[in-house]
């Protein structure tokens, strides 16, 4: 393969594949190319996308956050607990969840930079801890209005309408009630993180320390603070994901959110292949999440059975990783 073709395919290959996929489904699957269907795709990827954007920040500082799925489900349970059992308002529930996410991120960060626990292990431990912790207050039960709290007392609180609005409201956008709130929040977070990582000096320094920590330290970057900040961002975005999930479900379902971690990590890793970045980047992450969403939506509309979904996601991820690492190693190899 000539160098120019190689460069071109590294840079645009994935986007071309995405467009090809959309065109293919538009012709093959009836009703795929409608605004409603597009919004459905967006809605299906909004929550994993938000988590994926957070994990992108930790990948940028050469870390990894395995606890995001558990943080999201903890936020789900915490919001349900605070409204249904503690009978608090939506604002309190949201603030509690955001605070919890930031706090978990802080602990993750401290474990990693202060206690020198390797990132994968620290966040794996945190994941375990949170999965266990969120079950303790309700003895492992899901939370819903009217649930028994023992000895003839039932939970009186309800999910407040304002909270449910976060998950269920749809904005008018060309069509009536088209854009769901989670999609809007996803887009806002994507833009914010894109601006932060790509255009601010803090983002630049985070990339620098992720690439060569020692060098960053020797130019005077406060490496530890930035690392902790990355985990805190990841914790907060994960808790936002959990809040939106709770608001959509309207109950504290203990079993939901099982796939969140894998799906969002996959999206962030697929993002490496977008525009030949070969490194974590928020634009790629969003595209990665979208790619998986489109693929699954199209396949569902073509009547592919649901149990093939994980296989397809896995195949896309492996292909994207080969694309990223093999092709770009060929490219750097050609430079010398």
């Amino acid at each position, binding site marked *: 393969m000539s160098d120019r073709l190689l460069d071109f395919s590294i840079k645009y290959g994935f986007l071309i594949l995405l467009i090809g996929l959309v065109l293919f489904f538009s012709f093959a699957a009836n009703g795929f190319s409608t605004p409603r269907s597009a919004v459905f795709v967006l809605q299906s990827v909004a929550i994993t996308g938000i988590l994926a954007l957070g994990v992108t920040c930790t990948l940028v500082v050469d870390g990894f956050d395995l606890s995001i799925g558990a943080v999201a489900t903890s936020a789900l349970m915490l919001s349900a607990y605070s409204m249904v059992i503690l009978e608090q308002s939506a604002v309190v529930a949201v603030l509690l969840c955001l605070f919890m996410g930031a706090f978990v991120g802080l602990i993750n960060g401290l474990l990693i930079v202060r206690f020198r626990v390797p990132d994968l292990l620290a966040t794996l431990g945190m994941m375990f801890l949170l999965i266990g912790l969120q079950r303790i207050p309700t003895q492992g039960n899901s939370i819903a209005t009217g649930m028994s709290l023992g000895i003839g007392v039932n939970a009186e609180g309800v999910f407040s309408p304002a909270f449910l609005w976060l998950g269920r409201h749809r904005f008018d956008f060309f069509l009536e009630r088209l854009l769901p709130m989670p999609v809007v929040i996803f887009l806002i977070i994507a833009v914010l993180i894109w*601006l932060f990582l790509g*255009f*601010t*000096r*803090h983002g*630049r*320094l985070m*990339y*620098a320390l992720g*690439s*060569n920590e*020692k*060098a*960053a*330290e*020797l*130019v*005077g*970057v*406060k490496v530890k603070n930035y690392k902790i900040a990355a985990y805190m961002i990841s914790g907060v975005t994960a808790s936002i994901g959990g809040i939106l999930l709770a608001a959509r479900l309207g109950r504290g379902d203990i079993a939901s959110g099982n796939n969140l971690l894998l799906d969002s990590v996959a999206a962030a890793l697929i993002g490496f292949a977008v525009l030949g970045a*070969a*490194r974590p980047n928020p634009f790629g992450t969003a595209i990665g999440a979208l790619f998986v969403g489109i693929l699954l939506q199209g396949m569902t509309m073509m009547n592919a059975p649901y149990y093939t979904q994980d296989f397809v996601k896995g195949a896309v991820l492996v292909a994207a990783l080969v694309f990223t690492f093999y092709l770009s190693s060929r490219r*750097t190899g050609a*430079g*010398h």
Partner: protein
Amino acid sequence: MPAHALKVTGLLKTFGKNRVLRGIDLSLDSGSVTALMGANGAGKSTLVKIVCGYYDADDGEIELAGQPYAPANPSDAIAKGVATVHQSIDDGVIPDLDVANNLMLDRLAEPTASFFIREGKLRKQAQQVADSMGIDVDLKARVADLSVADRQMIAIARTMTRQPKVLILDEPTSSLSATEASRLFDLIDRLRDAGVAILYISHRTSDIRRIADRILCMRDGAISGVFENKPLDYEAAVSAMLGHSMNDIDFTAEPGSVPVLEIKNLKLTEKANAINLSARDGEVLAVIGLLGSGKSRLAEVIYGINAAFSGEMQIDGKNYQPTSVPDAVQCGVFMSPKDRATNAVVPGFDITHNMTLPFLSSFSTASFLNGKRLRARTQDMNQQLGVVCQSEKDDIGTLSGGNQQKVMIGRWLMEPCRVLLLDEPFQGVDIGARRDIGKHIRASAKGRATLVFMSEIDEAIEIADRIVVMFDGSIKGEHVNEKIELTALISDISGTVNGTVRA
């Protein structure tokens, strides 16, 4: 007449536009040590990498014991009998394994080696190897826990288990102290007596005096001198290596008068003598010394990475006690560290992103970066330093070592400072780039004190107004760079008195 152990004829190698080797002819004989001298960027490393199978030559022939020899890769070269011990020792040992396993590693890796390890036999064989090399360390010790010198010896001994015909040692003493080096020389003597042809690469005259049977000098990709008649003419070898006599510099030294950085009674360690030193406005002060002389430690103390044992520092008369790197930078003390690949270069970043890294806040409004200003400033600096590149958007990895170093130095010239520390700025830098960097550092020296930490005398003479020599954690001598007496300088560096090594 028996064939040479290794004979190289007409070797050529080009990287891009850069002609690194322009027709090298050399030969090595069994049972003799040939020293290969050459300044940084002369092409020594490239030559070695071709002989040991990392690179292919563009043209030329190599014969090994009379047979044509063209290694396909490094392991092929070893199998054919050319062993190399590289400059970075840790490439040659497995730190987490014990000494015995390290020594036997090559045997374990042979395809014919048995599936199960027989521990007793392995240790016995390892003991034999260690004995034959005169290595006296606990075979059960983990290599990571050993001193640099011991690791170096083990790396060499390991290669000897394959009984090579030719052994190449690439700057083996660069991380060793004087006593450690003398143990290494004993080992080399032993190998010479065993009939190995040894190519010893160094530009350290003290090593070469001790060990060499003959000297080859390289300059700008060609052999510039062969010295084999005893007694070897070291002075001539040095000028063949440098291509000019040492005192051939085109500036007059101005030691300056107004002190900027003053170091008072600073002790690096409890046992070291106190350091008193002042670096003055507008002067370039070279601090030279061997590895372990404490010069890097001193740089780290000034830059706030490590604390001194005792003593104080002042900048412009004000007390200066940095507790961290950001603290030092805040006080106007900048440092370009040694080992650019590990300590300075940010891979995956382009030239602009690399160069502007320390001062991003001055290129941003409310934290948002101004891309245009970043690039304009980088273009400007590229021009001043003569960075050879297509544009300021080139990835740092596409640049040659010398150009990367220009970017790393340029990084700290972006903003004015009071004290500029440069630790080994000419490490892995070709001569052209070295001249460019040196010239620019001298040209921009007004308004700050510049301290350059290095181990090469000739590099120091090329750049400095004043040279201080460190030995054993303290200052051994001070010379204004004007008609320097080289012998005095050299004896300061090596800690010798009247030419005899102090053990």
